[in-house]
């Protein structure tokens, strides 16, 4: 059973546009939701994260939104740049548990066209 569902699988946007990636999750115990960014040939790296006590977190051009009632989260990238072209993974976990295991979505491959 997939704990975290992510869409779309791939996305192409024009430079300067807004990118929106979405995820949903099942487990109500999840309280921590990071997004990872992966460039070709590299491992994923933490991009931005949000705790369930918040509904929005911004970091420059990147904003993540969280809706606890609907069990959904999203990543918005404004003024998308060719350098943002990468694969993005959402994830979820029960932060504070001994394992702290992350459950990853299947990823979204983003291409930003100049």
């Amino acid at each position, binding site marked *: 059973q997939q704990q975290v569902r*992510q869409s779309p*699988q791939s996305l192409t946007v024009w430079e300067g546009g807004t990118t929106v990636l979405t995820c949903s999750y099942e487990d109500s115990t999840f309280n*921590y939701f*990071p997004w*990872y960014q992966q460039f070709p*040939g*590299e*491992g*994923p*790296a*933490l991009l931005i*994260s949000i705790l369930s006590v918040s509904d929005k977190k911004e970091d420059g051009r990147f904003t993540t939104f969280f809706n606890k009632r609907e069990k959904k989260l999203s990543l918005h990238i404004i003024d998308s740049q060719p350098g943002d072209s990468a694969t993005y*993974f959402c*994830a979820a*976990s029960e*932060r*504070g*548990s*001994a*394992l*702290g*295991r*992350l459950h*990853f*979505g*299947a*990823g979204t491959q983003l291409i930003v066209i100049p």
Partner: protein
Amino acid sequence: EAAVTQSPRNKVAVTGGKVTLSCNQTNNHNNMYWYRQDTGHGLRLIHYSYGAGSTEKGDIPDGYKASRPSQENFSLILELATPSQTSVYFCASGDLGNSDYTFGSGTRLLVI
């Protein structure tokens, strides 16, 4: 700088052969993880460890073994490699109670 280092970066193995993928971390993290990444499946957890001497099965452990001889090192072992194990493998480390992972750069494995 704290890091996760994987070796080798690329590996070609013969079907039925034994393959060992190595991972070393300098983050002093308790937890370590092995994932494989395949198109359409994202990151799937194979094995993980809470600390030296411990290994646990992840979501897709069949055909794989793991070894954690020290805090710093975590190996993934394919005793009898099969073509279905052709993939990109990532190691990650994380601190106890903290869900943020540091990933290595990956090992690309081709089983022929």
